[in-house]
C-alpha cells in the first residue's frame, strides 16, 4: 500500500496525454452519441399517442416537447424518454392538447377543393377522416386544416364520417359541427342531392341535432337548341318524369316540323310547378325562330335567336312572358334574320309547295282556330310571302267529307281566312290574299280512312 502511494505521486505525467485523449474523445464522440440517444428516445415514444413531438439531445440531457392527448399519455411518454439507456436528464416540455369549447369541426367545399378544418380529437381519427374524405371525393383535392383539441363529444367520429359523405353531394358549401349541432349550407351537386342529404341527416348518432340546413338545390335546367345548319333540335337537361318527357318530345315533334329532334333529356326530381306547360310554350316560341336557343332555369325562361321577320320578333317578345304560368319570368333576346332575296311568283309557289310538303297547318278540332303548334310553319309561310311582294296568293281551305257539307264549306272558308288573317298580322298587305273555302269538294285522297281524311283536311297556297 505504501508502494502504491509512492508510485501514485509519479502518475501525473500521464495526465497530459490523457487530457489529449479526452479532448479527442469529446471531439469525435459527442455528436454521434447525441444522435444515438435521440434515435433511441424517438423510438421509445413511437407507440405513444402524441402530436408535435420533438426530442433534442445536448450531451446526455434530452429536451422533450410534445402535445399529449391525456395526462396519463403525457406521463407515460416522459417516463419512456427517461428510461432510455444513456439519457441522464430529461427536460419535460410536454403539455396537454388544449380543450376546445365549443368543439367545432368543419368541411368546406369550393370549386376545386375540400378543406377540412376545426378540431380533431386524436391523430388516428384525423387520419381516418382524411382517408374517408379522399376516398369519397374521388380526385378532388382535400386540404387538411384540422388541429387537435380535446373535448370531442361522444361518437364524434361517426357523426363526422356521415357529414363527410354529404360533402361529396355538394357542389359548394360548408358543413359545420359545433359540439353536437350540425349546420349545413351551400348548393347540392345534383338534382335530388339536397333531398339525399336531408335523408342522411336522419342517421346522425343519437344526441346530434341539425341547427340549420340551408342546402339549396341546383337550378332545374332544360335547354333546347335549334340548329338550322344541322337541321336539328337538341333537347338537353331535366324533365320531371317519363310522362312529361314523352309529352315534351311529342310537342317538339309537332312544333318543329322540319328538324330532327335529338333528345338528350333525363328524368330528375325537383321540377318547378308548371314546368311542362312553360316548356311547351317556350318551345312554341323557339319553333318560330330561324336559329335560337332556349334555356329554362328553375322558373326563368331565356330565349335568344333570330326571328324570320319583324312582326314575328315583336310577337315573340310580347307574348312569351304572358304565355307562361304564374310565377315564371321570361327574357327574350330576339333579333331578326336578314331578309332573303326576293323571288318571282314561280319560285314563290315552289317554296310554298316545298314547305307545305314538310308540315301541315293544324287547327283545333271542328274550329278555325289555328293550333299553337303551327306557329313556326306559318312564320315560314309568311316569310315566303314576304319574298314575293308583287305576287297575289290564293289561300284555299279544304275539309274531309265527315259532317254536313254546308258546315264543311263554312269551316273551310273560315280556316282559309284564319291563315290570311295571320299573314296580314305578320305585316303583309291584305289585298295580296284571297281566302277561298272548298269544303270537301276537292279531296286529294279517299275519305274512307282516317289517313285519307287527314290528307283532305288542308290549306293550299296558289301564287299568281
Amino acid at each position, binding site marked *: 500500500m505504501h508502494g502504491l502511494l509512492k508510485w501514485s505521486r509519479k502518475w501525473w505525467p500521464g495526465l497530459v496525454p490523457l487530457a489529449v*485523449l479526452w479532448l479527442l474523445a469529446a471531439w469525435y464522440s459527442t455528436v454521434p452519441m447525441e444522435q444515438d440517444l435521440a434515435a433511441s428516445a424517438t423510438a421509445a415514444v413511437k407507440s405513444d399517442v402524441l402530436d408535435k413531438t420533438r426530442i433534442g439531445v445536448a450531451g446526455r440531457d434530452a429536451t422533450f416537447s410534445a402535445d399529449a392527448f391525456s395526462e396519463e399519455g403525457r406521463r407515460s411518454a416522459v417516463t419512456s424518454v427517461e428510461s432510455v439507456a444513456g439519457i441522464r436528464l430529461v427536460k419535460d416540455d410536454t403539455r396537454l392538447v388544449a380543450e376546445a369549447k365549443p368543439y367545432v369541426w368543419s368541411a368546406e367545399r369550393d370549386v376545386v377543393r375540400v378543406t377540412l378544418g376545426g378540431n380533431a380529437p386524436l391523430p388516428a381519427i384525423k387520419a381516418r377522416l382524411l382517408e374517408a374524405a379522399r376516398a369519397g371525393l374521388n380526385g378532388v383535392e382535400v386540404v387538411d386544416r384540422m388541429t387537435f383539441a380535446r373535448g370531442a363529444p361522444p361518437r364524434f367520429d361517426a357523426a363526422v364520417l356521415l357529414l363527410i359523405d354529404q360533402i361529396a353531394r355538394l357542389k359548394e358549401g360548408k358543413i359545420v359541427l359545433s359540439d353536437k349541432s350540425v349546420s349545413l349550407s351551400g348548393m347540392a351537386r345534383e338534382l335530388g342531392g339536397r333531398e339525399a342529404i336531408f335523408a342522411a341527416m336522419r342517421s346522425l348518432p343519437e344526441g346530434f341535432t341539425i341547427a340549420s340546413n340551408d342546402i339549396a338545390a341546383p337550378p332545374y335546367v332544360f335547354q333546347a337548341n335549334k340548329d338550322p345548319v344541322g337541321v336539328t333540335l337538341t333537347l338537353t337537361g331535366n324533365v320531371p318524369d317519363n310522362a312529361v318527357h314523352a309529352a315534351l318530345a311529342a310537342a317538339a315533334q309537332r312544333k318543329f316540323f322540319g328538324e330532327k329532334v335529338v333528345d338528350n333529356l333525363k328524368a330528375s326530381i325537383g321540377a318547378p310547378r308548371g314546368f311542362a306547360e312553360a316548356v311547351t310554350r317556350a318551345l312554341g316560341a323557339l319553333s318560330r325562330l330561324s336559329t335560337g336557343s332556349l334555356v329554362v332555369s328553375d322558373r326563368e325562361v331565356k330565349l335568344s335567336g333570330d326571328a324570320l321577320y319583324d312582326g314575328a320578333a315583336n310577337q315573340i317578345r310580347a307574348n312569351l312572358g304572358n304565355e307562361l304560368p304564374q310565377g315564371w319570368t321570361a327574357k327574350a333576346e330576339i333579333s331578326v334574320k336578314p331578309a332573303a332575296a326576293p323571288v318571282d311568283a314561280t319560285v314563290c309557289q315552289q317554296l310554298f309547295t316545298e314547305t307545305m310538303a314538310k308540315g301541315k297547318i293544324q287547327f283545333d278540332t271542328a274550329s278555325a282556330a289555328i293550333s299553337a303548334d303551327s306557329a313556326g310553319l306559318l312564320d315560314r309561310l309568311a316569310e315566303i310571302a314576304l319574298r314575293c311582294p308583287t305576287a297575289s296568293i290564293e289561300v284555299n281551305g279544304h275539309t274531309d267529307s265527315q259532317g254536313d257539307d254546308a258546315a264543311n264549306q263554312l269551316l273551310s272558308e273560315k280556316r282559309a281566312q284564319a291563315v290570311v288573317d295571320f299573314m296580314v298580322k305578320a305585316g303583309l298587305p291584305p289585298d295580296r290574299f284571297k281566302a277561298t273555302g272548298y269544303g270537301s269538294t276537292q279531296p286529294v285522297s279517299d275519305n274512307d280512312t282516317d289517313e285519307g281524311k287527314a290528307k283532305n283536311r288542308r290549306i293550299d297556297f296558289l301564287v299568281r
Partner: protein
Amino acid sequence: MAYLITFHWGWLAGGLLLGLAMGWIAVVQHGDGLSRANMQRAAALVVILLALAIARLVPGRWGYWLDLGLLMLGAYLVGCVCGSWLRDRFISRQAPIA
C-alpha cells in the same frame, strides 16, 4: 454508466493502456513525484468534480464531457494501479535475485 462504457469503450481502453504504461514506468522512475500537498489538492479536485457529476449539476455537453473525463481518469488510474503493481510484483522484485 453502462451506456457510457459501452459507447466509449475504445477511448476508455486507451485511457487504461495509458495508465498501464504510466504505472509501469512510475515504479522505476527517479525523483519524488508530486508533493503530499499537491496530491491532496488533486484528490480534492477530483472529489469536487465527482460530486458535480453525481449531483448532475453541470448541464448539457459540459456535463457529458465531465462524465467522460472522469470515466477516462478512472480507467487511467485503474491502469496505473495495475501497471505499477505488475511491474513491482513480476519484474522489480525479481531483478535483485537475477
